[in-house]
C-alpha cells in the first residue's frame, strides 16, 4: 500500500479555477475523507487523483511516483462510484473480473480473485446475478469488489453511500470501516458531503471550500479546534452556535468575559447549561426529541436561532423562557473568521 501526496494542485475548467492550490499528504494505510459542501471541488480532486480529470498544475504522487501524466489504469488506484457504475448486462462475477479479463489475466487467477473478493464482501450467493436483481447495498458491495480484485495501492470512494437509504447507509458505512481493517489497512480516499460519515470513518479529514483546503486533521481535532468559522460550522451536528460580539458583549449588551478582540463567539449545543442567572436568554421555538438527547432550538432577544442539548427525558416545551450559561468550550474568531485560540474554557 502507498500514500498519496498532492502538491499545489490546481484545476481549471475553461476560465473557471475550481481547485486553487491544494496541498495534502495522505499517509500509507490512512483513511482520508474529503468533506465539504456541494461544488467545493472534492469530487474533482478525487477524479484528478484517479486520472479521470487532467491536472492543470501541481503534482500528484501515489506511492512516491508522480502520476500526473499516467493513465488511470497505471496509477494503482481503483474507484468506487456514487452510482455504482456496474455493467448492467454482466453478472456479479463478470462485473468484478471484467477489468482483469480484458487485460489478459489468466482465467484461474481472475476467478480466484473474484471468489476472494466475494468472500470478503459476503457476495458469494449472488455471483451469478445481474445488478438489477440486487439491492442498493449489494450493488455497492459489488462496486467495492470490483475495486478489490484489482488489488490497488489506493482505494478512491466518490460519495459511495449517497444513493442508499438512511438505514442501509449506516450499515454500509460500518462495512467500509471494517473493510479498511480487513484489507490490511489499505490507503483509502473517500469523498462525502456528510460530516457524520467523515467523522465516523476518517483517520484524517480534509475540509474543502471553494477549491481550497480549510483544515486538515483527525476528526476530533477538527471538532475541538476548528481553524475557522467555516470548519466550526461544518463539523459537528447540530451546527455550532455563533454569536456576533461587539466590544466583548453580545448583541443585547450582555458582556462576555475573556473574549478580547474576538468578533464571533462559538459554542456547541452541549456547551450550554440551564442556569437561572445565565447570561444567555431565549424562548424555546422547537424541541427535538432524539431519544438519547433533547435539542431545544431557542430564539434570543436579538432574534437569532440557537440550539442547546439536554439530557434524555428533560421536559421542555415550546414557548418556554430559558436562561443558559456557556459552561462548555468556547471558540473565538476574529473579524476574518479565523480561530483566535484553541477552544477556551469559560472563566470560572
Amino acid at each position, binding site marked *: 500500500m502507498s500514500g498519496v501526496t498532492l502538491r499545489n494542485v490546481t484545476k481549471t475548467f475553461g476560465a473557471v479555477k475550481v481547485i486553487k492550490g491544494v496541498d495534502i499528504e495522505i499517509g500509507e494505510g490512512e483513511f482520508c475523507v474529503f468533506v465539504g459542501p456541494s461544488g467545493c471541488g472534492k469530487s474533482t480532486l478525487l477524479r484528478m487523483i*484517479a486520472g*479521470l480529470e487532467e491536472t492543470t498544475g501541481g503534482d500528484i504522487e501515489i506511492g512516491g511516483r508522480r502520476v500526473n501524466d499516467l*493513465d*488511470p*489504469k*497505471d496509477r494503482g*488506484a*481503483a*474507484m468506487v*462510484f*456514487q*452510482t455504482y*457504475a*456496474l*455493467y*448492467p*448486462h454482466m453478472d456479479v462475477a463478470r462485473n468484478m473480473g*471484467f*477489468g482483469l479479463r*480484458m*487485460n489478459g489475466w489468466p482465467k484461474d487467477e481472475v476467478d480466484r480473485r473474484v471468489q476472494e473478493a466475494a468472500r470478503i464482501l459476503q457476495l458469494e450467493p449472488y455471483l451469478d446475478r445481474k445488478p438489477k436483481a440486487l439491492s442498493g447495498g449489494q450493488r455497492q458491495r459489488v462496486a467495492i469488489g*470490483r475495486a478489490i480484485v*484489482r488489488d490497488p495501492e489506493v482505494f478512491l470512494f466518490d460519495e459511495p453511500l449517497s444513493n442508499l437509504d438512511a438505514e442501509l447507509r449506516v450499515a454500509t458505512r460500518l462495512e467500509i470501516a471494517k473493510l479498511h481493517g480487513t484489507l490490511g489497512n489499505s490507503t483509502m480516499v473517500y469523498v462525502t458531503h456528510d460530516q457524520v460519515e467523515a467523522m465516523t470513518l476518517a483517520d484524517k479529514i480534509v475540509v474543502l471550500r471553494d477549491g481550497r483546503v480549510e483544515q486538515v486533521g483527525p476528526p476530533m481535532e477538527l471538532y475541538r479546534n476548528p481553524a475557522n468559522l467555516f470548519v466550526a460550522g461544518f463539523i459537528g451536528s447540530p451546527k455550532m452556535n455563533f454569536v456576533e460580539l461587539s466590544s466583548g458583549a453580545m448583541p443585547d449588551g450582555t458582556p462576555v468575559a475573556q473574549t478580547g478582540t474576538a468578533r464571533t463567539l462559538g459554542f456547541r449545543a452541549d456547551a450550554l447549561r440551564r442556569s437561572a442567572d445565565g447570561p444567555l436568554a431565549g424562548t424555546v421555538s422547537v424541541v427535538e426529541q432524539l431519544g438519547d438527547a433533547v435539542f431545544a432550538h431557542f430564539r434570543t432577544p436579538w432574534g437569532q436561532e440557537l440550539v442547546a442539548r439536554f439530557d434524555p427525558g428533560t421536559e421542555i416545551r415550546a414557548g418556554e423562557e430559558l436562561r443558559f450559561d456557556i459552561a462548555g468550550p468556547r471558540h473565538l474568531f476574529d473579524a476574518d473568521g479565523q480561530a483566535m485560540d484553541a477552544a477556551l474554557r469559560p472563566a470560572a
Partner: protein
Amino acid sequence: MADATMGRTARAPARREAMVSPRARRTITSVVLAVLCAVWVYPIVWMISASFKTNNEIFGDTGLIPDAPTVENYARAWSEANIGRYFFNTMFVTVGSVVVTVIATALMGYVLGRRRFPGRGLLMGLMVFTLFIPQGYTIIPVFELLTTAGLGQSLWGLMLATCGHSVVIFTLLFAGYFAQMPKELEEASRMDGVGPVKTFWYVMLPLSKPIVVTVVVLQTLQAWNDFLLPLVITLANPDLRTLSVGVYSFRGEHFIDWGGMNAASAITIIPIVILFLFLQRYFIDGLAGAVKG
C-alpha cells in the same frame, strides 16, 4: 360536519351518465379495430390466395379459397423465373448491408453521442440535411462511384450502395441512445484499464441492444424491399437481380404471369415475416427507447 359534507356534495358537478358501458365500449373498439385490421391484411391474404391459383382462376372471381389449389406457381417462380438465384442475391445484399450498417452506424453514433469535438454540430447538421435529398437524385452519382471503384457490376457494389439508404437515421438513433448512457460506465471501464475500442465492444454495444435490433429490422426491410437502386444497378446484368426486381420481371410485354408473380411475392415476404416475429419485442422497445431518450 354533516352540513359541511352536504355543502361539498351540493357544489360538486353532477356526474355525467356514461352513454355506453365500459364493456360495450371495449367491444365496439375491438370490432372497429378488427375491421381496420381486415382491410390492412386483405391484400396479403389475396396475394397468398392468388399464389395457389392458376392464372385463369385468379380472374374467375372464385373468392379467397382456391377451387383447386396448386403449388405450380411456386415451382415455376423458383426454377423457371430464377427466383432461387434472386433469393440468394437478396440474402447476400441484405445480410451484408445489415452487418456493415450496424457496425458503421453504431461506431459513428458512439462518437457523435459521447464525444465533444469541434465541428460536431455542423457534422450532424450536414447529416440531417442529406435526409431531405430524394433517393432518385443520388442513384446516378452512386452508380458512378461504384463503377469508378470497379464494383458497378457486382453484388458487393449493390450491397455497399444499399448500406447508404438510412445511415443518417440509424446513426442519429445510436447517438441519441449512447448520449443518455451514464458516463460512469465508461469511466469505470477506464479505471479497469479497458481501452476505448473494447469498452465500445464489450460494454456500450451490448447495452444498446434495443437500437441494434431496431437497426437490424429496419435495414433488413429496407434492403429486402429496395427496388429502384437494384433496378438501376442490375439493368445490364440480370444475374444480379434481387427479389423485388425479379418479381417485376413476371410482367412481360404481352402477358403478366399473375400466379407466378404472387408466388414469388409470397416467397419474398416469408423471411421478413419470420424476422419480425422473432424480433418484434426488441424492435418496439428500441423505437420506444429512442423516442423516450
